[in-house]
């Protein structure tokens, strides 16, 4: 009982915080121009994808480079559900979560036997190979992909309510709910056990933890989150295509997660913001150097790589961690 009383205000505080965040997003969405609204929807999508990496790598200690492939599973599941069964949107998103969770569980069973570079290699192969499967089966639409059309915003929102604002709303709500659930999972018994397994699997086993089962569970939940992100991504661009879930996306996500602080859930918003900002920054740099088309093509990749290297050297736990340490030092003084 004591514990309950202690926990409840914290839970209430967290819920209030998420609702407040939702309000702020809503107001921002009304104030900025349409391009920013569109980018906002992308940020929300990346937030979910990064949360899936934080859960898998940051908490359960499994390195995966195949998040783009997980997203593809979710995206295709959602699009196939919506197009073939004419279901409501929420059901398509639900199917994305279920399909990618099942896929993650299967993959996790294999992954639980692997670790370190072997796991990274396996998931990398997945990121390369899986999207290409779309080319082999005609119902997956080949290289051009298949359209994923969630429809126009409801008429009661008025004429001024654009398609992108609709995407932004849906993406933001999904991201907030997903983050809320993820943060609860991470602070639950599972989160603690994952950290125990990550820290020392043998010690955790001795304490009675079934480490491989926990790893599979982490893979399943992480994959479900990635699949959800994949479906949100598909909604934002109205399309699922193998090219959308490229290897570059998988790498960008890992970079985003490292920048966010691989084991910090609140950091994912920052990581997502950077991922969306990189093409803009590249555009600005290329623009200032004259109209260099070729430069503009390779610059985003270059920036991602440089940021990854710099953050691994200087802020291996993310800039958020450094900030926290800095604040602690000040307090200590």
């Amino acid at each position: 009982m004591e514990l309950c009383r202690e926990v409840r205000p914290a839970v209430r505080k967290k819920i209030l915080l998420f609702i407040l965040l939702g309000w702020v997003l809503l107001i921002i969405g009304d104030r900025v121009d349409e391009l920013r609204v569109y980018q906002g929807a992308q940020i929300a999508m990346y937030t979910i994808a990064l949360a899936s990496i934080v859960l898998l790598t940051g908490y359960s200690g499994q390195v995966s480079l195949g998040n783009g492939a997980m997203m593809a599973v979710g995206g295709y599941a959602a699009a196939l559900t919506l197009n073939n069964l004419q279901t409501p949107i929420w059901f398509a998103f639900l199917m994305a979560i279920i399909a990618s969770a099942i896929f993650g569980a299967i993959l996790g069973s294999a992954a639980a036997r692997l670790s370190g570079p072997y796991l990274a290699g396996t998931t990398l192969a997945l990121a390369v190979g899986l999207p290409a499967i779309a080319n082999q089966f005609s119902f997956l639409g080949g290289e051009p992909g298949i359209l994923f059309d969630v429809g126009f915003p409801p008429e009661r929102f008025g004429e001024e309510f654009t398609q992108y604002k609709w995407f932004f709303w849906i993406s933001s709500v999904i991201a907030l709910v997903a983050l809320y659930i993820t943060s609860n999972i991470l602070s639950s018994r599972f989160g603690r056990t994952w950290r125990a397994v990550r820290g020392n699997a043998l010690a955790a086993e001795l304490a009675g933890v079934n480490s491989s089962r926990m790893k599979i569970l982490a893979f399943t939940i992480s994959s479900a989150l990635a699949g959800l992100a994949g479906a949100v991504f598909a909604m934002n661009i109205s399309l699922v295509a193998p090219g959308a879930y490229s290897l570059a996306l998988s790498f960008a996500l890992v970079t985003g997660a490292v920048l966010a602080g691989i084991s910090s859930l609140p950091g994912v918003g920052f990581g997502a913001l950077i991922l969306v900002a990189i093409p803009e920054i590249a555009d600005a740099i290329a623009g200032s150097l004259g109209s260099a088309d070729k430069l503009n093509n390779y610059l985003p990749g270059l920036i991602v790589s440089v940021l990854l290297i710099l953050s691994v050297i200087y802020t291996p736990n993310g800039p958020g961690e450094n900030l926290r340490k800095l604040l602690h030092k000040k307090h200590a003084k």
Partner: protein
Amino acid sequence: MIRKTGGRRTWFVAALLAAGSLFATSLPVQAETGVSSREIKLGITLPLTGAASPGYNKIGNALDAYFKYVNDNGGVYGRKIKLIQKNDEYSPQLSIAKTNELILKDKVFALVGPLGTANFTAVHKSVGIARRKVPALFLNTGFSGFANKKSYPTSFTILPSYAMEAKIVAQFIKENLSDKKLGLVYQNDEFGIDALGAFKDAGVKFDVSIPYTSGTQSAATAQTWVSQLAAGGAQVVVFFGVTSATAPLLAVSAAAKYAPQWILGSVGSDPLTLRALGVPVAVLNGALTPAGNPSPNDTSDEYIKQFQEINEKYNNADFDDYVLQGMNIGLMTVQALRAAGKSLTRAKLIRAMETKGSSFASVAYSPLGYSRTSNVGHTGYYMAVMDAKGDRKPYGGSVVLYTTDSGKGPVVKSNFKRPAMPAKGLPTN
């Protein structure tokens, strides 16, 4: 006293409101997006890099070169045209991102010559081209689905559709090759299926029919196609796919000494791309292909001659079909902008395309189909035969033009004479 002050305040507020509203109504009408008194901003998405870029990457610069030529000669009613090219690497999701940038960030007035069937399908849906009422002129794709004016009210095609192409090829086969065994290789997406339906409607039956999925073409898959075609005894093989599939098909056939009469769709018969893919252009020798434009090497043609001059001065690229296509889109765009009048708006541009578009000068031989109910550009082809350099000559020595539609309409021989090239290549319409 109090009442007096209150009254004064009311008067003051009323006066302020009146003055404010007067000021508001006297404000100039808001200018159209992408148009100023000095400039018209246009945008194009196309593959500047990547596997599909050879050839296509020349269209943007050719278009820009033509606009620069027009700008140096006074622009369009005094406004200079500024073209913004965005590289989409031929990937639909990049097309969406780049078109978003063009419309939301660069705020272009209209899109010209966006490239690719899957790309524009995705862009139209995702970016909401129709809902935003953004004109998309002269789509560089032959997908007949875009001919649906209700679904694509602000878009206009330029190329004859794949369905028209297939119908004309079907007619040609019936007239000239009806006693031969027929084979077909086609890409099983909108592109090839468009053609397949037209062949079926025309009553042309293939003895061997091989579909392939875009992206799977390779020497190994071409090997299986060739063995199937040879086993089926196909003497005439019609190919509806991209050049990166033509290349292994022709190379493998040549190596296997399998030499049917090739009929290559207009998309898959580009000599430049073949060369870029490392296949000798000579494999094209004797292949038949439906063509819309004169050969880019035909300097006796007034359009070609003028465009070559502009290319030399403003572009300095090898003058080929892609450069020709880019320049011709430029020529038609300028006519459309002029036809929309001096106070340019998006609505007026679309109206101009509908009411005056069919009379525009264009290098292609066939009539333009633009009207209030149709957004279809060119409507016909002539059959050409290719030589060992990949250059084409009209089959039988002179151009025999066939016209048709994308539906059930008949294929007819046409005596249409295209409008003359405007003097110095500068429209005065």
